[in-house]
């Protein structure tokens, strides 16, 4: 069963799409279940203006991509990368064991964003 956050974000994802001219791209894959997610970002002055995704995966991983995009729009990048593990868990709500890998996906998305920040590319 899926919690309401997952149902809402999976059944009607608002952030799917492709940007012709993205400022940054984050791509991750889960070797076990084969989930793949690509996020594209438009930024200015350390703020994320727009985030879109493409995903191939289970319902929860597609929902996770949408939740991530939704949560970063309009936010300063350095505050996004400081989110705690608890905060990330709350973003997805209660998960079944078979869905826990999506918390790992969400964590990875934040880590990749932090790595971009650290490398000074954003």
């Amino acid at each position, binding site marked *: 069963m899926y919690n309401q956050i997952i149902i809402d974000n999976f059944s009607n994802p608002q952030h799917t799409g492709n940007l012709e001219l993205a400022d940054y791209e984050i791509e991750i894959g889960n070797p076990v279940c084969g989930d793949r*997610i*690509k996020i594209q970002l438009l930024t200015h002055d350390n703020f994320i203006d727009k985030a879109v995704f493409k995903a191939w*995966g*289970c*319902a929860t991983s597609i929902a996770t991509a949408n939740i991530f995009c939704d949560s970063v729009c309009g936010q300063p990048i350095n505050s996004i990368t400081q989110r705690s593990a608890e905060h990330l868990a709350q973003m997805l709500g209660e998960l079944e064991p078979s869905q*826990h*890998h999506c918390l790992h996906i969400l964590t990875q998305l934040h880590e990749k964003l932090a790595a971009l920040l650290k490398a000074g590319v954003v």
Partner: protein
Amino acid sequence: MKTEHISGYFDYNATTPISDEVAKSMISAIGQFANPSSSNNYSQLAKTVVSHARENVAKLLNVKAPNIFFTSGGTEANNWAIKGVLSKHSDQPGHIITSAIEHASVHDPIKYCIQQLGYEVTYLKPDSSGAINVADLKGAIRANTQLISVMYANNETGVIQPISAIAKIAHEHSIPMHVDAVQLVGKQHLDVTALNVDYLSLSAHKFYGPKGIGCLYIKDISSIDPLIHGGGQESAMRSGTENVMAIAGLSKAAEEAQQAIEQWNKEYWSYKQHMIALLNAAPIKVKFNGATNYIDALPNTLNITIEGIRAEALAARMEMLHHTIISIGSACSNNKTKKASHVLTAMGLNEVDIQASIRVSFGRFTSLSAIEMFVQALVAETQVLLSISESGICKSN
């Protein structure tokens, strides 16, 4: 049965709704509180329910009533056939032949016999049609083969196995033969006497009866040990006070199937053909797994790979947005492992195709318009998922 409430149910191979007639017969049996094995006036009524049920099931299979033994369902019947036959050889554990595509209730008792009791096993693989090969079976027979257990129809693909030919070979070699017919009973006519197998399992909830009741047909009771010992019910072959209410349900389900099977079968087949035609004409890429023709597969089952999608996501959208239930070939089970269909794996499908595979199974409460709405929803949701995943990150290889 208000069929509109369940028009989105396409998982009849998992379980079927109880028919109104079955429900009625169970409700009327609930008052039969007496123990059917006692010898007072009250118990006579309960006893009649049980013996009438045995007659009805026997008629459905075309066998004699005393050869029917009630169990708690398909799982128990399969466990009993395997352990009950092999325990006759416990002093000299030999060899078992089965297929790679059996239900867990056959595979797991066999695994138990291998690991705990020292038996050996050969698993016969199906070809891409989903059926095992009779020549492979012949080649697998050893001097010490003590049991052949092969399912009649596969639950995931609906593909029918060459049981009649296998039974003939088994008899030529005097090897007892068990058939898990759980998926075939109630979908296709079955004559177990003509088939000439030694043991055959069925389960009521796969043909509009209640859960938790089934039976094992046993040709010769001296050839098998009881699985459950106790008070001597079922000719001391399967002890335990009978579940009269469930038996009444099975009885009615068998009676209804006996009367309507030709009609159901015809109707399912016409729906299946319609569904195949609609899917082939749809703007999505589908591949049917295993045989789909009338002779080689159940008329109510289709196993379909839909290129480019993840079945798990498709099933979720079908349920969330269309109240439609299907079954899938692979699912994430936790962070580190994945459960992929052993049936599709044995048929040679690759991982990506298994992840893109669904099982659709329908039944007597499915209507033609439900089939059409189903395909419409399936195509629309497939297109949504393809649009979410396009642009090169999601190659299907």
